[in-house]
């Protein structure tokens, strides 16, 4: 049984246009998945099916074998946590601590458990010392980290993060990357909606490409980045390093390079093997 099983889901926001056109997808425990694709293609609509924020117009979504249509959204939220793209759609407390404590409190946990989880989550996202700060006094990047902490304190099995790196600088991006890795190492499944292919290359193992309400490609990150035509059709460019590798295809460069480190190792290997020369001697 899959953790999340999306079975031929169709969804309409109430008009004639279908935002999802027969989507099927299985998510297994401990996966890291990126939903990619242009805005308006259905990524967020799909992700909101995972925890019942939206329920299928047709078809069904099973979370641990139970249809989302049969479980209230607040109950599902204990299994599948959803972090909105825009922090102001989520934040409503006047203190960082209260914002993070809200979830476990609402779930009826014992006070000491609420406290322990709140402290843990605030610490994990690097907001220790800011417990009494008003969320709106945080900069945008920290505000987004706060919204992640407020879901972490619920300890869901699946995290859906909607554009966690948008508006983040390098430091914030790095922190989100580390956070996803450590949540995943601890056994959680993480789904991110993102446009940041460099981030995807570094953090996420599986890509689901969504366009016009359908899944256009689904596979391992490395493999999807090699499907240049499919990506181009969705107006997505793989990471710069992958583009470089593709441009050097005729020279025997590995085509599945994704990161700077991989490219350096690969090119060095070629140089040492005598294929290539030192520019200094040119």
């Amino acid at each position, binding site marked *: 049984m899959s953790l999340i099983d999306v079975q031929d889901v169709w969804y309409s926001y109430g008009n004639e246009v279908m935002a999802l056109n027969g989507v099927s997808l299985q998510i297994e425990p401990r996966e890291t998945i990126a939903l990619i694709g*242009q*805005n*308006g293609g259905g990524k967020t609509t799909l992700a909101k099916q995972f925890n019942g924020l939206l329920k299928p117009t047709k078809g069904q979504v099973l979370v641990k074998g139970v249809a989302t249509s049969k479980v209230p959204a607040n109950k599902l939220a204990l299994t599948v946590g959803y972090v909105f793209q825009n922090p102001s759609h989520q934040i409503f407390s006047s203190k960082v601590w209260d914002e993070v404590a809200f979830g476990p409190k609402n779930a009826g946990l014992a006070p000491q458990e609420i406290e322990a989880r709140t402290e843990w989550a605030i610490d994990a996202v690097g907001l220790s010392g800011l417990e009494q700060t008003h969320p709106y006094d945080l*900069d*945008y*990047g920290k505000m987004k980290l706060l919204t992640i902490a407020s879901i972490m304190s619920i300890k869901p099995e699946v995290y859906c993060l909607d554009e966690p790196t*948008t*508006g*983040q*600088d*390098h*430091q*914030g991006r790095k922190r989100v990357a580390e956070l996803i890795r450590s949540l995943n190492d601890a056994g959680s499944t993480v789904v991110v909606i993102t*446009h940041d292919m*460099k981030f995807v290359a570094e953090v996420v193992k599986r890509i689901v490409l969504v366009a016009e309400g359908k899944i256009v490609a689904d596979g391992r990150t490395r493999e999807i980045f090699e499907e240049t035509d499919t990506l181009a059709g969705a*107006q*997505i*460019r793989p*990471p*710069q*390093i992958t*583009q*470089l590798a593709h*441009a*050097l295809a005729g*020279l*025997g*460069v590995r085509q599945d390079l994704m990161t*700077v*480190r991989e*490219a*350096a190792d690969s*090119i*060095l290997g*070629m*140089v040492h093997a005598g*294929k*290539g*020369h*030192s*520019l*200094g*001697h*040119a």
Partner: protein
Amino acid sequence: MPADETTVQVDGLIYGYPGHAPVLQEISLKVTKGEMFGIVGPNGAGKSTLCKALNGLVPHFYGGTYGGSVIVSGMNTMKHTVAELSLKVGLVFQEPSNQFSGVSTRVDEEVAFGMSMMGFDRQEMSGRMTNALKQVGLEGLEDRSPYELSGGQQQRLAIATVLAVRPEVIVMDEPTAQLDPVGKTEVLETMHALNKEGYTIIVAEHEIEELATFADRIIALNEGKIILEGPTHGVLTQIERLRGIGVDPPSVTELSHLLANEIALKPEKYPITLDEAIALYRTTLEGNPS
């Protein structure tokens, strides 16, 4: 126009929001007419504040402590109102919806709104509106609601509202930060085209791999100070210093830095764009001395 005409001159700018420590400390810079000038730096470095100082919102709108001077198109921002300055320097915000008046229900009305606030006559407004929408590629969408547009279209509309006033300098504060890749490309291409038309453009931008392809010069800000400045190539090849302030250099530049010793590559030869990198590694791997 004379070559190397300074359009923006900032001297020893110090600024702090009311009740706060300075967020800009001794900023001095010059921007030449027709230049594409990039500002990079981590969040909180002062990029937005610097952008607002260029059109007078800082300090006129925000108040606070202010020292030094900002001269844009010959106008000292301290001695002119934001309205006067807005005829010479247009500011485009990160969120297009922050730019919108909120009262217009049509794209063309939105472009006209800013001009009507500045007292342009009807005839003049109509010509400028048509032109501005054409410059950003939104012609044909005049009767649409601004809120029905895609993110990239909204940001281009925000640029059009600024363009209609025909400023000499356009300042953009992370105009692509909230957009998807298609929207980012639309806005960056618009920016590039306007620069080719002769507009001086100053842009704070996180998309460093894009900035590498079209900025003439760049400053890197950290904690309110200029850490690096100069021609784009010179700034973006300072890998360690950029990383030190939490700015990611272009991937191809980082790659060259990692390989520098092995392939005897000096920083002045590091590629900063994909095309430069392709050319470099073709030569390296083909073994043909260039």
